[in-house]
């Protein structure tokens, strides 16, 4: 049991902290609403999202389409060289178009969706089960995995691990679809223990080999585009996993993992790190794991305690997490009450900043934390702030859209499309009342309240006031530039 935060200490800054971490932040009105609810009801408001309807329609191609695949394969097999080329080009373009749509679909869910906490969890699971489009090469599978994370976002760990393992994108990503009893592929067996559920040092190389045998038979039916169990390629012999002997199959192996004493410690530490921005101390980790286990390895009750706990609101945690690029972009749009840039631009920005959704760098996911910040990505954040606020096109080049030999491609086409894009920018009347706008000191104070939920240093405030001093009119453009300047600070990069 974690010590809960007392209702008395609940205020605007703490409500903002909750909304920033359990969601993607929001404008002052939204924060004030949570502040009025008190900690318990504020947490429930975010966590009990099942009560809120989710009207977002799915992309129209988000369903199995074996006929499309059959046609493509037919053209590749029997077509003339010209037809073959044509089919490949079309497939490539379809993939690029749908992936772009999918990215926009998900980002809009984060920005405008009715269930920000659920989307934050989907983002966590995407980074956790880091599966890349670059290998899966199928937008339907990528969407389907994303939906799986949404459906099981805060449910049972065992069910999530089993379903994620049987998910088509994962079967391709970690080669499980190709594993047979005479040549078991160890990739999924290894990563599920190392990266998804236990961490290094809690299993042996021998366990990996045995687990790979247990997992044989888990496969993908390309006709139905569904998981299939193939008994003929399953190894029916006895296996020894974590010292236990039996004719285990894939489900048995996952159950053994979840029952492993390390399992609750591993996943709760990772969740704490994601939401609190720090590695938990061994004592705290023990406590977190105990709460998780006491709740039958279910996430929802565990997360409720986490967000209610006093320690989650302690000084070393508030405003001490580096914003991920997604947090930076989605959070900025929400705080500034502006439009998300067109998907092509949003995607280009996220790629430049190091978080290409649906294309994590490897199965370990994004390293996160301070590794988001380099001299390069920091300047890019400052410049993307200009694009977002002033409505200019960010500096993107073909290379930002194309990776050689991958499906990221289409760099030149993207650049052409970019020329037609008009950016929105910030509407000053949405972020400042006429009274706030009357004076440079109130302008700076109101924007601080909105963007930082705290104050900058007096030197920085002075710099901003001086900037406005030199502007006789304090026009919309001058105020937009002030916002951009505030976002071009080290302080804006943390939450």
């Amino acid at each position, binding site marked *: 049991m974690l010590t809960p935060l007392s209702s008395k200490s609940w205020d605007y800054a703490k409500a903002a902290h909750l909304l920033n971490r359990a969601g993607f932040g929001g404008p002052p009105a939204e924060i004030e609403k949570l502040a009025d609810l008190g900690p318990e009801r504020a947490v429930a408001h975010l966590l009990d999202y099942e009560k809120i309807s989710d009207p977002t329609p799915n992309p129209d191609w988000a369903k199995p389409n074996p006929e499309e695949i059959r046609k493509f394969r037919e053209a590749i097999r029997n077509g003339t060289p010209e037809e073959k080329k044509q089919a490949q080009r079309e497939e490539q373009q379809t993939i690029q178009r749908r992936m772009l749509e999918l990215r926009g679909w998900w980002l809009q869910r984060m920005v405008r969706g009715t269930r920000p906490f659920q989307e934050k969890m989907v983002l966590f699971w995407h980074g956790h089960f880091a599966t890349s489009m670059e290998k899966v090469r199928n937008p339907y599978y990528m969407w389907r995995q994303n939906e799986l994370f949404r459906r099981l976002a805060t449910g049972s760990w065992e069910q999530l691990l089993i379903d994620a393992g049987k998910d088509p994108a994962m079967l391709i990503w970690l*080669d499980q679809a*190709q594993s047979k009893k*005479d*040549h078991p*592929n*160890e990739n999924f067996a*290894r990563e599920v223990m*190392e*990266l998804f559920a236990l961490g*290094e040092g809690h299993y042996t*190389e021998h366990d990996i080999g045995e687990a790979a045998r247990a997992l044989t038979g888990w496969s993908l039916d390309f006709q139905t585009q569904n998981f299939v169990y193939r008994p003929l390629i399953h190894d029916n012999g006895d296996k020894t996993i974590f010292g236990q002997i039996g004719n285990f199959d894939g489900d048995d192996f996952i159950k053994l993992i979840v029952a492993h004493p390390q399992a609750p410690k591993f996943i709760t530490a990772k969740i704490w*790190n994601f939401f609190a*921005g*720090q*590695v938990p101390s061994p004592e705290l980790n023990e406590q977190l794991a105990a709460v998780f286990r006491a709740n039958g390895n279910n996430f929802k009750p565990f997360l409720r305690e986490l967000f209610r706990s006093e320690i989650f609101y302690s000084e070393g945690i508030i405003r*001490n*997490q*580096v914003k991920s690029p997604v947090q930076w972009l989605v959070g900025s749009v929400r705080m500034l009450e502006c439009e998300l840039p067109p998907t092509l631009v949003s995607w280009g920005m996220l790629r*430049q900043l*190091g978080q290409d959704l649906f294309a994590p760098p*490897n199965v*370990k996911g*994004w*390293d*996160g*934390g*301070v*590794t988001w*910040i*380099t*001299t*390069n*990505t*920091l*300047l890019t954040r*400052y*410049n993307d702030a*200009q694009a977002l606020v*002033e409505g200019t096109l960010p*500096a993107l*080049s073909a*290379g930002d859209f194309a*990776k*050689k*030999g991958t499906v990221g491609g289409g760099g030149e086409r993207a650049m052409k499309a970019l020329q037609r894009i008009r950016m929105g920018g910030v509407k000053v009347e949405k972020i400042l009342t006429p009274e706030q706008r009357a004076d440079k000191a109130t302008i700076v104070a109101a924007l601080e309240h909105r963007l930082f939920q705290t104050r900058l*240093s007096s*030197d*920085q405030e002075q*710099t*901003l006031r*001086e*900037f406005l001093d030199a502007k006789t009119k304090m026009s919309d453009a001058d105020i937009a*530039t002030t916002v951009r*300047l505030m976002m*071009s*600070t*080290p*302080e804006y*990069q*943390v939450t």
Partner: protein
Amino acid sequence: MKNEITLQTRREFLRRTVLGSSLAWTVPAFLANTFSALQAEAADSAIQTATGRDANILVVLQMAGGNDGINTVVPFANDFYHKARPTIGLKAAEVLKLNDAVGLHGAMKGFKSLYDVGQLSVIQGVGYPNPNRSHFRSTEIWQTASDSDRVEKNGWIGRYFDNACSGGDPAVGVTIGSQLPQAFFATKPKGIVFNNPQNYRFMANGAATEESYKKLNELEMSAPQPDDNSGGSIGMLPAGMPMTGGRAVDFISRTALDAQHSSDEVRAIAARVQNRAEYPASQLGGSLKMVAKLIGGGLPTRIYYVSQGGYDTHTNQLGSQQRLLGDLADSVKAFTDDLKAQGNMGRVLVMTFSEFGRRVSENANGGTDHGAAAPMFVIGEKVKAGLLGQYPSLAPQDLYQGDVKYNVDFRSVYAGVLENWLKTKSAPILGRQFAPLTVV
């Protein structure tokens, strides 16, 4: 704490050195005088920095994904090799022979030509005890130079900066890319990172905006640097494992300062210096092209870091490895040609590494799975050219879990490079004394 570099002196250092030209626009003259006084103080203590203007330079080239060393330096005359690799084994006619037993992959003509003029050393069978077959863990081991059962936070290059370049210019390390590799993680993080020099700057809609940006990112440095004894600063922590001491914003403030001061210099060099060789139009080619410019432009960098990905060849390895190794050899060859034309080749050493080699036996998908030891390449005018170390035995009874055994510890290679090339003691950097392999 007598050799501590305060943020103040760090800022002063930035103004004074490479990036010194920025002094004029950042501070009024009376402040500059104050800084000069500070600088004089600092000069007596820790700021005795090696700069790269005339010193030796190391270029670290990461082959990410685990390169199949056995099909890179090919034991074409070995029966065990052909038995283990009936479909992807390379025949004698397909390799560039180095002697009667081994040859380079046929795509590596660029490397063969360097070998023939005595500028390539091939270190065979490089690895470490108790090899780990996880990409991430094994990469971490190579980046931190740790034992395989010990988790280190800082990188070996970071420790080199901490030990040998204290107080140095941030541009002492340059990574072409968007992420800082763990090898650079240090107690006092250093190094600049960028991809495209054109966009490596603050874009402002007017002089007043730019002026304000500089102030906002310069003045707010009052937060104390994390104390080294309090559990370390942020930059030393491993990826994704944020700080135990110090606040995130301190780390970002330091990075902001480095970004501000290095961006002008990098862009000026990129615009001024011309390449004098034709590079492949690949990501690696582009990165080495940029490094050649920066070397030609006189950036005081000791270590450059570039990488090439895609070596995780579990399926249909032949085509992808052909493309990757061809790109590698052609890019590095162009780089050496460029440096020779500049007259800088004599002070540049290129060292490649990959997190592991691959299994001796091919798998059922025309590829190979994660393995252990593999060769490293070192390129330069002063290298000990030829084949170093011994080719590991491929005889089944000599393998460990299907992998070749290493006979050169990679830290001996690091030790050789540190001591003989970067001219510094290796033991404080590598944790203990490894017998330095004579690579130069």
